[in-house]
């Protein structure tokens, strides 16, 4: 008996709907086996990993905090990926946005005004967009591979931030610790409700994702993105410019990542420090694909990945397992999502007959 993957004539509608859920179920199942092997009760482990964080207002806030940058970046990336532009450098654009936005509260720290926060957010978007403009320019005019250029720019951004907070922007009152000044209260993104720490950044993320969804679904621009992504030649016949699309998608995703960066720095950290992101820009790539490059799906995917972070801490504390469990879960999830997506284009066929095997054998 063999298992064969056979290409479907048409993509399966059924599997394109249920594949993420199937992946989720498999992840939970495999996770349960992992907990059992670790000698923990899988049911209670999975409960405190996936359910408990949803029962507390406090941890819902924490999930929203974690999800906001993932959704915002992931939504921007979906436009890139749909139009066949592979921006892998959202992490760098996140940092560039954070730095550009922080110019206002760090350099002009004596200026107190209600304009501070809006300016920061605008600067953040411009910073992220400008940083994404580099790979966009290189691709549009030099025909370089944007995967490489955008990825390498991440390290430049990280080291530039590192230099800034150790050098020119180092706070005079932090005992030489590499952090910038604390942002003044008017430079802090306000909290949403008083019951927890979640801030306006989550609203930005949801509004941006819904906005993109409307654009993708109801506007010519959305059509243009899809057409150019599927077939550049067909797009050209329709009068769409793939070069303009490079600029559009890269600047848009850069601006979104930049906004996420300044929101994180302003709303959660309250200052610049050498490391401001636990890899949001890269995790957002998982989020974008888990959400099937659909902005609404990305909201759900972002919330789910945020849950794995918060839940991972919960099991660490209640069961005393290693913090690596979170990473394992995220890896499992991506693995199962990608493999389940295979079922959209292919079907599994069990071959019982030995006929083809023997003919293959005879062909030697």
């Amino acid at each position, binding site marked *: 008996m063999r298992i064969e993957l056979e290409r479907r004539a048409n993509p399966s509608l059924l599997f394109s709907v249920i594949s993420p859920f199937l992946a989720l179920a498999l992840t939970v199942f495999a996770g349960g086996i992992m907990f059992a092997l670790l000698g923990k009760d899988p049911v209670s482990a999975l409960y405190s990993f996936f359910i408990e964080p949803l029962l*507390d207002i*406090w941890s819902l806030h*924490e999930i929203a*905090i974690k999800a906001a940058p993932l959704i915002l970046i992931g939504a921007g990336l979906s436009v890139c990926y749909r139009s066949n532009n592979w921006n892998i450098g959202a992490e760098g654009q996140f940092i560039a946005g954070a730095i550009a936005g922080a110019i206002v509260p760090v350099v002009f720290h004596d200026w107190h005004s209600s304009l501070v926060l809006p300016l920061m957010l605008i600067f953040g978007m411009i910073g992220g967009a400008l940083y994404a403009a580099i790979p966009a320019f290189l691709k549009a005019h030099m025909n370089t591979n944007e995967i490489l250029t955008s990825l390498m720019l991440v390290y430049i951004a990280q080291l530039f931030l*590192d230099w800034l907070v*150790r*050098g020119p922007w180092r706070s005079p009152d932090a*005992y*030489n*610790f*590499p952090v910038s000044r604390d942002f003044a209260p008017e430079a802090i993104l306000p909290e949403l409700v008083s019951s927890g*720490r979640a801030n306006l950044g989550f609203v930005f993320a949801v509004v941006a994702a819904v906005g993109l969804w409307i654009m993708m679904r109801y506007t010519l621009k959305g059509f243009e993105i899809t057409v150019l992504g599927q077939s550049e030649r067909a797009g050209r016949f329709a009068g769409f410019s793939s070069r303009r699309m490079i600029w559009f998608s890269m600047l848009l995703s850069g601006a979104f990542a930049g906004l996420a960066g300044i929101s*994180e720095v302003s709303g*959660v*950290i309250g200052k610049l*420090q*050498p*490391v*401001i992101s*636990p890899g949001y820009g890269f995790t957002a790539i998982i989020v974008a694909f888990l959400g099937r490059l659909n902005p609404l799906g990305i909201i759900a995917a972002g919330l789910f990945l945020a849950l794995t972070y*918060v839940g991972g*801490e*919960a099991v*660490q*504390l*209640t069961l*005393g397992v*290693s*913090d690596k469990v979170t990473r394992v879960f995220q890896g499992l999830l991506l693995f199962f999502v990608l493999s389940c997506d295979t079922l959209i284009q292919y079907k599994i066929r069990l071959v019982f007959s030995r006929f083809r095997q023997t003919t293959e054998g005879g062909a030697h």
Partner: protein
Amino acid sequence: MKKIILALTTSAAVLGFAAAASAQDKTKICFIYVGSKTDGGWTQAHDIGRQALQDHFGDKIETPFLENVPEGPDAERAIERMARSGCALVFTTSFGFMDATIKVAEKFPDVKFEHATGFKSAANVATYNARFYEGRYIQGVIAAKLSQKGLAGYIASFPIPEVVMGINSFVHGAQSVNPEFKVKVIWANTWFDPGKEADAAKALVDQGVDILTQHTDTTAPMQVASERGIKAFGQASDMIKAGPETQLTAIVDTWGAYYIKRTQAVLDGTWKSEQMWDGLKDGILTMAPYTNMPDDVKKLAEETEAKIRSGELHPFTGPIKKQDGSDWLADGAVSDDGTLLGMNFYIAGVDDQLPK
């Protein structure tokens, strides 16, 4: 004044009982680690302290912990999670948890917090630290005795007073033996990064140092020193396993006794916010066995240690000049703690500029 203290302690006692009662039968004493509990250095030393605490009180307490908690927004969530889970006392064991600890402590006035190596405290936030510079001084004495070139390499983390103080103490100890002794410093800009620490160690060895010491958390520099055949000092934990032929001694953080004392105070309801800064004589740090050195050096090291323990010798005793040549301490003068805790300058003999 006495009345106020009495009122404070009784209310603290009442709160203590309330906290103990709400946490079912076992009191929860919680720990937040910046690294992995098996890092072989800083965090492992805290975890050994935690185990000592657990063994001491047995079934009376639970000691949950979170490891690899990054300094930043995640720290605040991790600490808040601890506070919410019913911890009576939370030890936050890295400098970078300071602001997060203070923030969470404001929200949970009934939970007690102890922050290691910081400078901010509150009614329910105590700080604790060890006078590591005492051990550094002894290391300097040994280094000066053993170094052929009169040059040691120092892998430093961040230019905060704690670290600068250690470098100065090391140099001053070395200069008590060899006034011409010099030290080269590399800032790894991390507490915990085996790769970066190893790179820094290699760079220092390439620059010609023949003794290595570190103020970072992993055993990577010790391993590099072993490979290159020079001697080194361990940090935070006894690193003899990483360099059986290499380690001269190590400053071993022995937090266990402190953790037991403070937990007892919580159980008794007598816990108060304090700023603890103890040294060798209190057992908060100990020196790992003096190995891989001639007997006379070993004897000198032991004598120096004994003098520091007895209080006969303060590592920062003048005359000491600053790096720029200006006077700091006159002959026989001893530095006050305030200057040490805000230390932002090198003394003469350090071959480095503080990052500006």
